[in-house]
């Protein structure tokens, strides 16, 4: 009886601890949002006066617009290229049994565990040795070295649950290669492809250590934030920080809705077939 009670107390403690750690995880982000609405030049707590003028300034500012477009272009290109390459990469990772697969699976994961700042510097060295001037385009390349393996891994999870029998059946029924890809493979793997794309976009959007050394004269939002944090603080830092977080949240929300719609459409189709 006593041990039953002890166990219940232990379980309650675990729940409380988990809650506390979740609060710990979100507190800094809430602090940034809080600071973005204050009026003073330098942040003080408790906050005495609230203001939204830094948001107005952010929306009017041309340099903020530049930062946004740089970050957005990088993230968009990284997403598009990564998804295509990782699609094949994931098939090689999880679907086909081939000689060299185990080695491939391990080598492809190396960049994920690699210190990103060092990777960024190595790339800087690489670009200047090859005579390439760094700009946001080289940052796309740099981001992909880290993001492509992650997207491949995410898509692989979906590929593991994909039964090649479907493809074979379609071939037997006389479908062409392209038809099989369009009608069978892509629709079945769609959830994995979409989650891969979401991760690719957001990880590129928020990346800092790789951008720092590979964007040259261009600047992404995380780079600008870092530069201002280290020297030359302005109240625009929490504001722009909040805006990028809001952007990421909005993107996730849209992606989530798209996924639900796709699932609905799919269900509708399979109902029609019955």
């Amino acid at each position, binding site marked *: 009886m006593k041990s039953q009670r002890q166990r219940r107390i232990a*379980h309650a403690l675990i729940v409380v*601890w*988990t809650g506390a*750690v*979740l609060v710990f*995880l*979100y*507190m*800094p*982000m*809430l*602090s*940034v949002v809080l600071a973005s609405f204050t009026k003073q030049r330098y*942040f003080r*707590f*408790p906050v005495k006066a609230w203001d939204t003028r830094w948001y107005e300034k952010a929306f009017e500012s041309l340099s903020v617009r530049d930062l946004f477009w740089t970050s957005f272009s990088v993230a968009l290109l990284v997403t598009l290229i990564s998804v295509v*390459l*990782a699609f*094949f*990469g994931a*098939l*090689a990772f*999880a*679907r*086909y049994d*081939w000689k*060299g697969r185990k080695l*491939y699976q*391990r080598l*492809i994961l190396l*960049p994920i565990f*690699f210190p990103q*700042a060092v*990777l960024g*510097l*190595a*790339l800087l*060295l690489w670009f200047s040795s090859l005579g390439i001037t760094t700009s946001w385009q080289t940052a796309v*390349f740099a981001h992909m*070295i880290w993001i492509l*393996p992650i997207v491949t*891994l995410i898509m*692989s*999870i979906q590929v*593991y649950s994909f039964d090649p029998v479907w493809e074979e059946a379609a071939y037997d029924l006389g479908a062409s290669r392209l038809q099989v890809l369009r009608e069978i493979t892509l629709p079945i793997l769609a959830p994995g492809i979409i989650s891969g794309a979401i991760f690719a976009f*957001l*990880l590129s*959007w*928020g990346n*800092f250590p790789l951008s720092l*050394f590979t964007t040259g004269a261009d600047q992404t939002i*995380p780079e600008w*934030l*870092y530069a201002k*944090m*280290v020297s030359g603080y302005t109240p625009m830092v929490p504001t722009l*920080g909040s805006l*990028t*977080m809001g952007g990421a949240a909005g993107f*996730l929300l849209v992606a989530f809705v798209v996924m639900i719609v796709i699932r609905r459409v799919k269900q509708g189709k399979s109902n029609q077939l019955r």
Partner: protein
Amino acid sequence: MKSLVHWVRQPGFLNALPVGVFLLVGFAGPLVLVLLYSFMPPKTFKLDQLPTLENYVSVVTQSYYISFGWSLTLAVVTVILLLIITYPIAYGMAKLFGKWATLVTILVALPLLISENIRLFGWVLLLLKNGIIDGSLQFLFGVSLSGLLYTVPAVVLGLVYVYLPFMLFPLVIGMSMVPDSLKEAASDLGASRLQIFWEVELPLSMPGILIGSLLVFILALGSLAESKILGGQVIVMIADDIESAFTFAQNWPKGSVLSVLLITLSLVIIFFLFRKIDLDRLVGRR
């Protein structure tokens, strides 16, 4: 020759080709270049000199052991703290929370999608003099805790904060591999709670603990933003030294040597890690 053609024609190999070629150009290439530069005389910007070990000697004889020491120490401290912090949560997620475990997973994973320096900046606001923690204490109790930011504990806090998910998720996977029936059997045979923990739970969830620890160790070892944003100038970590060698000092060979040392250390750990895990099982849950 025929067998080579046969090997190249495997569908798996052909599919692996785009990613493989990309990483060869973008990952292997730069690393080989760094390795080559590490053997060049100091402050050269071309690879046309005779190879020398000069940089390695100068790095070993100079005070770089301090930043290596800091990085190693902080990485170990981060791993230990994270093991203590996440173990109960992982247990809860694997055994207690049921459906809620998914929600906890999502909530822990979401911050990973927010830029690391925005989240670290949040800690600056919390720890700052007159910041959220100091300000609240002044307001409520009239005591001031103004020296929180730019200290070694602040850097540790940043590392623990940023790398928490990388410890938690492997632990959860490791722990969900321990069958409940084994614990019940041990209990039926008269084992105490502590015995069950030491002799059943801990050894069986060891793969997860190992993966999580090594992962966090490697990531913390090469970290840059935490010590810069939360530590100010209080300590220099190895990634910091590498950065200044490449940028301010314009000494590529020296930066390369430091990188090679850090990479070698990480690679040794990664190979150890990969020998311990079966990726098909971990990713595909087969």
